[in-house]
């Protein structure tokens, strides 16, 4: 598939890349080489400069200094899907360069034939005539990869490709990556998950504070030493407190979920009931589509169930009414911070205080100074890094944006916190910090916690873990739960 010349020349060679955003130096002289047939894992904490580097390599913006040399065309598969939902797979694969007949008319038959050909060549199997809007996340990813391959690209940048995939799909993705590697494709693999990097990559590169602090072949480095390099010598991630001692909470029923049913494409939740005692921390987990996240959204009032009831204390929460749930004392950390976690143009303080405007307003009016004074302690506890609490959240790094989202939920002093994947896309140290804060708050204020996540590390702070399979509660564990058994249960094996 590749000629011998391109096998010898690097696919990407970047030297001395520098980039500055205002007063922030995002990249301070980064070198990076990517060889054909290799898979280079790019890791680093949030704000280390990974996204900036990816954007520069993809040509989204130019570096301030330094040089990027490409051995051939390069394609990036971003975290957010870049397919056009209204077009078919074949149309997406040939977007902007459709095969034409004489007179400029699109040659549909040829376009479908070539799409099927490329799919077959690489062992992929997505139907060329399917509308992209009805593809699964995995199929969309394949479509994007095929688009790159069909255009002759032999260098792929995969930005957090597993973020939205369930376990089986991740395995299949890895199979595809291995195959691409063997055929001489160069891959830059950006990920938060070190296990993935160890499983699939041939080399690893670590960014920290805009500098490339380590480049090494695998498995020459250990996971532990990699974490140390990522975090820097001074700060090791702290263990959440509950790993040390778990006191069984006392008190009556606080949250009651009664026979909740919700059908939507891809997810069906069937007659689920559960209770959370006041002060108790309950985790819900399951594969994508299991309904764990849907259930949490329903409890938070972000989604109305088809039937069933959510009660907090003796109050029945109005279905699908988020502002009523907030007034009843439900804090909410949504799944996708970009979608509904914060308002990008508004400042950190204003985003954090958005849940308590009724409390900080005097006769309806809010003093910005008072707002910042109230947000400051929370920002402090969450170690929020910003140039000031007035800085628009859009300008913050992903990890700090997540801290704002969590801060917003905690600001209202909730009696129940509903947290959905609260550490998604967040680096190791921030992860520990966010979980530690949820742990501390629930202990100190006696608030209950309903935590929906597919990351087992998140569930460490829970007293009890419910596993959902196909929209029903399949198993229940008390903490500390056996990881193997928990994973088996999510797959429906008891």
């Amino acid at each position, binding site marked *: 598939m590749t000629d011998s010349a391109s096998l010898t020349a690097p696919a990407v060679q970047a030297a001395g890349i520098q980039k500055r955003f205002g007063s922030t130096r995002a990249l301070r002289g980064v070198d990076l080489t990517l060889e054909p047939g290799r898979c280079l894992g790019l890791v680093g904490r949030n704000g280390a400069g990974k996204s900036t580097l990816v954007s520069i390599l993809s040509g989204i913006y130019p570096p301030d200094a330094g040089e990027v040399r490409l051995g051939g065309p390069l394609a990036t598969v971003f975290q957010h899907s870049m397919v056009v939902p209204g077009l078919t797979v074949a149309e997406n694969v040939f977007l902007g360069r459709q095969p034409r007949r004489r007179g400029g008319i699109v040659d549909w038959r040829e376009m479908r034939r070539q799409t099927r050909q490329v799919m077959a060549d690489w062992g992929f199997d997505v139907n060329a005539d399917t509308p992209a809007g009805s593809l699964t996340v995995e199929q969309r990813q394949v479509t994007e990869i095929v688009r790159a391959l069909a255009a002759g690209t032999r260098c792929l940048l995969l930005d957090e490709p597993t973020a939205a995939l369930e376990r089986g799909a991740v395995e299949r993705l890895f199979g595809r990556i291995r195959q691409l590697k063997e055929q001489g494709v160069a891959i830059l693999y950006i990920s938060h998950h070190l296990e993935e990097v160890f499983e699939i990559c041939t080399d690893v590169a670590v960014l920290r504070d805009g500098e490339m602090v380590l480049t090494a072949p695998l498995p020459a480095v250990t996971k532990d030493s990699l974490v140390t390099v990522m975090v820097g010598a001074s700060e090791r991630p702290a263990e959440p407190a509950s790993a040390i001692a778990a006191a069984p909470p006392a008190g009556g029923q606080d949250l009651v979920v009664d026979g909740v049913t919700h059908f939507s494409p891809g997810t069906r939740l069937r007659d689920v009931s559960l209770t959370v005692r006041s002060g108790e921390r309950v985790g819900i987990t399951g594969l994508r589509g299991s309904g764990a996240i849907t259930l949490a959204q329903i409890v*938070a009032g972000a989604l109305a169930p088809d039937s069933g009831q959510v009660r907090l204390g003796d109050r029945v929460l109005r279905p699908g009414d988020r502002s009523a*749930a907030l007034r009843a004392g439900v804090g909410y950390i949504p799944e996708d911070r970009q979608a509904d976690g914060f*308002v990008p143009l508004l*400042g950190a303080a*204003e985003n954090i205080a*958005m849940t308590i405007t009724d409390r900080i307003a005097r006769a309806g009016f809010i003093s910005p100074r008072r707002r910042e004074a109230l947000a400051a302690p929370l920002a402090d506890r969450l170690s929020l890094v910003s140039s000031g609490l007035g800085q628009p959240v859009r300008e913050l790094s992903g990890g700090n944006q997540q801290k704002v989202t969590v801060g917003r939920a905690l600001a209202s002093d909730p009696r129940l916190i509903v947290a959905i994947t609260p550490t998604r896309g967040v680096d190791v140290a921030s992860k520990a910090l966010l979980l530690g804060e949820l742990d501390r708050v629930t202990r100190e204020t006696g608030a209950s916690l309903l935590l929906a996540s597919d990351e087992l590390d998140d569930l460490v702070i829970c007293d009890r873990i419910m596993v959902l399979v196909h929209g029903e509660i399949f198993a229940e564990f008390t903490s500390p739960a056996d990881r193997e058994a928990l994973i088996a249960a999510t797959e429906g094996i008891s």
Partner: protein
Amino acid sequence: MNRTRAVSVIREATLLPVLAVLLLASSLINPHFMTVANMTGIGQQVSALGVVVVGESLILLIGGMDLSLESTYGLAPMLAAWLIVPVASFGNGMLLSPYVGLLILLAVGAAVGLVNGLVIVKGRLNGFIVTLGMTILLAGIQDGIVKGQAPFNLPTAFGYLGSASWGAFPVALLVAALIFTGAGLFLRYHRAGRAIYAIGGNREAARAAGINVDRVRIGVYVAGSVLAAIGGLMEAGRVSSVAPTQGYGEGIIFPVFAAAVIGGVSLQGGKGNMLGAATGVILLGVVQNILDLENAPNYWIDAIYGGVILFALLLARVIGGEASAE
């Protein structure tokens, strides 16, 4: 924090130098420009438009759009005037008190806004097409009830806002300035004002934060239409009659949008402020005035005005950078 605040104020004021240059150039071109009479004249003329711009800006900030403000601007004073002036002045003969007329005017504004808001927010229809339909409907009613006539001889109380002066100072200008200032402070400091920015900036995030998004959005459509009705009252008072073409027939929605966008209010929502919007209004007013003073050829005045607005949009894009983009 102080730095970001300072930067944002500077960014908001980028149009002020342009305005200063325009004022200077205008006073050099025409000696009658920089006179008290002319200045108050401009003030009186732009007040009505300015009040509608406040209404449209609120709606744009929350991520919506309302084309029907121009028809509300015509229909609300038309219906009120029709009910209060005698048949001889093209009224319908009910001869209602002018104060009742004012209430009717406000009620028409509120009702139109409420219908728009409910249909768009609860009915989940696109604001562009809903308000476009509403525009035509309202303008048709405005024309229909008076059969194309223009009620005149408006009672003093009804025309006061648009025609009265305190000394050399037009009441309309004072009221418009108060409305701009009030709306500006409201947007900057009031809970609901901040909710408007939150909803315009990311509606789902605002909802997840517990803001009652639907209620605020409907409220803003109501407020916008009421402001359009008040603007229409000012215009009716200024010319002391209500033309069947007032609003829709004159096509005021273009300068309304243009003033807001030149002033940095984003059509995407969540971005912009009243200082910018006011600058945009004054800019358009000055341009219109200098064209009048210089006796621009009658048949060409619209083309020139339109061209100047497009140029001003480009200029605002270049100077304001991202602040007025999109």
